[in-house]
C-alpha cells in the first residue's frame, strides 16, 4: 500500500512500450488477502495488464538454517514442522532421511509404513486445501475451501491422536518414529480413507466441469517444459508441464517401490493442469494409503541403536530429499562430528517454484496473478525460512 501522503506514483510509459498513457505501480502485499502469507509483489500495470512483477519475500524469515547450526540434530526437528506448516510430517521425514543418510541409520519396516501413511495423508490434505485456496482466490467465497477443510479436520484428528499435535507434529525420529500407532488408529484411518473417494467426487462435481473455473484457469499462466526444468521447478507444478519427475519414483526412498501408483501428467502446463494434476494425485495417494494400511506389519518403530541424547554422527555430508506435497524438499547436512550440524541447508520447493512467477504473470491480468500464485502453491514459512 502507498502511504497516504504520497501521491499516486504513475510511471510514464516510454515510446518503446508502445502507445501513450502511463503505467501504474502497485505493491500487492505483504498484507493482501491472497498472497498466502506475508508475500509482496511489486507489480507494474498497464491498465490491468501486468508489465512487470517483482516478487519480494523475506518478511517471514526466521533464520531457520542458522538456528539449526546451533541446535542439536534432534533440536532442529520441531523447527522443520514450521517450514511448510501445512505438511509438517513430510518435512520431518525429509530431515530424518538426511540425518539417517548422514549417520547410516536403518529404519524398521513398521516405521517406514507409518511414514508413508502419514506422508500420503499429508499430501492429501495439502492438495485438498490448496484447491480450496485456489478457488478462494478465484472468488468462490470459500465453499470448496470449507469442504476441503471438513476432510482436513479428520486427517488432523488422526495426526493428533498419533503425534499429539494437529499441525506441528514433530513426529519422525532418526531411525523411525517417536511413538507407535495408538490402539484402533489403523481401523479408524482405514474407515476414513474409504470415505475420501466420495469427497473427491463431490469436489469434482462442484468444480471440475465448472465453466467459469475452466475459463479462469485454462491457458492462464502457461509454464513451458523448458522453463520449468531450467528454473528447478519440482512437484505437481513441474508434472503439470509434462515432465515426468517424481522423487518417489526416482529415488524410491523409504519403501515407495513396494507400492503401485501412477503419476498424473499435465500437458499444457497451465493453471488448470496444475489444478487437475493435484486432484488426480490425491486419488493416487488414496491408492498408496489403501495398500499401506492393509500391509503394515508389526514390529519396532525405531532403530534401538540410535541415541536420543548425545547424538553425534561421524563427520561427512548428506543430502536427503523426498517428494513433499509441494515438490522436492531436500535437506543438506554437513557434520563435523559434534552434536550440531556444521552446515544445514534446506531446499524448499515453494521457493524454487516461486521463481517462475514473473514469467507466468507477464501479460496477464491482476486477477490472473492471484490465481497463478495460488496454483504454484507456496507457503511463506518455507519460502522465507
Amino acid at each position: 500500500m502507498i502511504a497516504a501522503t504520497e501521491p499516486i506514483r504513475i510511471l510514464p510509459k516510454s515510446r518503446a512500450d508502445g502507445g501513450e498513457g502511463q503505467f501504474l505501480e502497485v505493491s500487492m502485499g505483504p498484507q493482501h488477502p491472497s498472497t498466502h502469507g506475508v508475500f509482496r509483489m511489486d507489480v507494474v500495470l498497464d491498465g490491468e495488464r501486468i508489465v512487470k512483477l517483482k516478487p519480494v519475500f523475506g518478511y517471514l524469515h526466521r533464520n531457520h538454517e542458522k538456528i539449526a547450526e546451533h541446535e542439536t540434530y534432534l533440536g532442529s526437528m520441531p523447527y522443520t514442522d514450521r517450514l511448510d506448516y501445512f505438511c509438517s510430517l513430510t518435512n520431518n521425514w525429509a530431515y530424518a532421511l538426511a540425518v539417517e543418510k548422514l549417520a547410516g541409520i536403518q529404519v524398521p519396516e513398521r516405521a517406514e509404513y507409518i511414514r508413508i501413511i502419514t506422508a500420503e495423508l499429508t499430501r492429501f490434505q495439502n492438495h485438498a486445501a490448496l484447491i480450496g485456496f485456489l478457488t478462494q482466490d478465484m472468488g468462490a467465497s470459500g465453499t470448496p475451501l470449507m469442504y476441503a477443510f471438513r476432510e482436513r479436520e479428520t486427517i488432523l484428528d488422526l495426526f493428533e491422536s498419533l503425534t499429539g499435535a494437529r499441525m506441528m507434529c514433530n513426529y519422525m525420529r532418526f531411525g523411525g518414529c517417536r511413538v507407535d500407532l495408538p490402539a484402533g488408529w489403523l481401523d479408524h484411518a482405514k474407515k476414513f480413507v474409504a470415505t475420501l473417494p466420495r469427497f473427491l467426487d463431490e469436489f469434482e462435481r462442484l468444480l471440475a466441469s465448472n465453466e467459469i473455473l475452466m475459463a479462469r484457469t485454462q491457458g492462464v499462466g502457461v509454464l513451458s517444459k523448458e522453463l520449468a526444468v531450467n528454473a528447478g521447478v519440482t512437484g505437481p507444478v513441474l508434472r503439470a508441464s509434462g515432465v515426468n519427475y517424481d522423487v518417489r519414483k526416482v529415488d524410491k526412498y523409504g519403501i515407495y517401490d513396494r507400492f503401485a501408483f501412477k503419476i498424473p501428467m499435465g500437458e499444457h502446463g497451465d493453471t488448470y493442469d496444475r489444478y487437475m494434476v493435484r486432484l488426480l494425485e490425491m486419488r493416487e495417494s488414496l491408492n498408496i494409503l489403501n495398500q499401506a494400511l492393509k500391509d503394515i506389519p508389526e514390529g519396532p518403530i525405531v532403530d534401538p541403536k540410535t541415541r536420543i541424547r548425545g547424538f553425534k554422527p561421524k563427520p561427512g555430508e548428506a543430502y536427503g530429499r523426498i517428494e513433499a506435497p509441494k515438490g522436492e524438499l531436500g535437506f543438506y547436512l554437513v557434520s563435523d562430528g559434534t552434536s550440531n550440524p556444521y552446515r544445514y541447508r534446506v531446499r524448499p520447493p515453494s521457493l524454487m517454484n516461486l521463481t517462475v512467477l514473473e514469467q507466468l504473470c507477464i501479460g496477464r491480468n491482476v486477477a490472473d496473478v492471484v490465481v497463478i500464485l495460488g496454483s504454484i502453491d507456496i507457503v511463506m514459512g518455507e519460502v522465507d525460512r
Partner: protein
Amino acid sequence: MTATFLILAAITIAGTVAAMAMRNLVHCVLALTLGFAGLAALYLQLGAQFVGLTQVLVYVGAVAILAVFVIMMTQKPAQTTESIFSSFWLTGSLIAALVFAVLGWAIYSSRLTSAIVSPHVEAAVRPIGDALMHRFVLPLEIMGLLLTAALIGAVVVAIQEKRGSA
C-alpha cells in the same frame, strides 16, 4: 415562478458556475453533474417526465461518467495552479453576452412564447413515441444512421491504431 423553480434554478446555476470555477477537474465534472441533475429536475417539475429522466440517464449516467472516466484514465490527479481566469476573459464574456442576447431576442420574438398553452400538458411517453415514429421518423432514422456510422468509424480507427502499435 414557484419556490421549487427558484431552488432548482439556483442549484442548476450554482452547479454550472462551480463547474467553471473549480480547480480540480474531477470536482468540475461533479459540479457539472449537479447542474445536469438540476436541469433534469426542472424538466420533471414541468411535467416532462420522459425528457427529465432521459436527461438524467444520458447526462448524469453517460456523459458525466464518460468525462470522469477520461479524466481518470488520462490526467494526473494534480490540481492546476494557474488562475481560472483566462487572459481572454473579456473577449469570452463579450461573445457569451452576444450569444445570450441573440438567444433571448429569438425567444422573445418567437410566436411560441406568446401563446403559452397550459403549464400542465402531460408530456407522456406515448405522444413522444408517436411523434418520433410518425412525424419525425425520417430525422430519427438519419440520426441513427449517422451515429452508427460514427460508431463504426470509431471502431475502425481504434483497430488501425491497435495494429499500428502492435
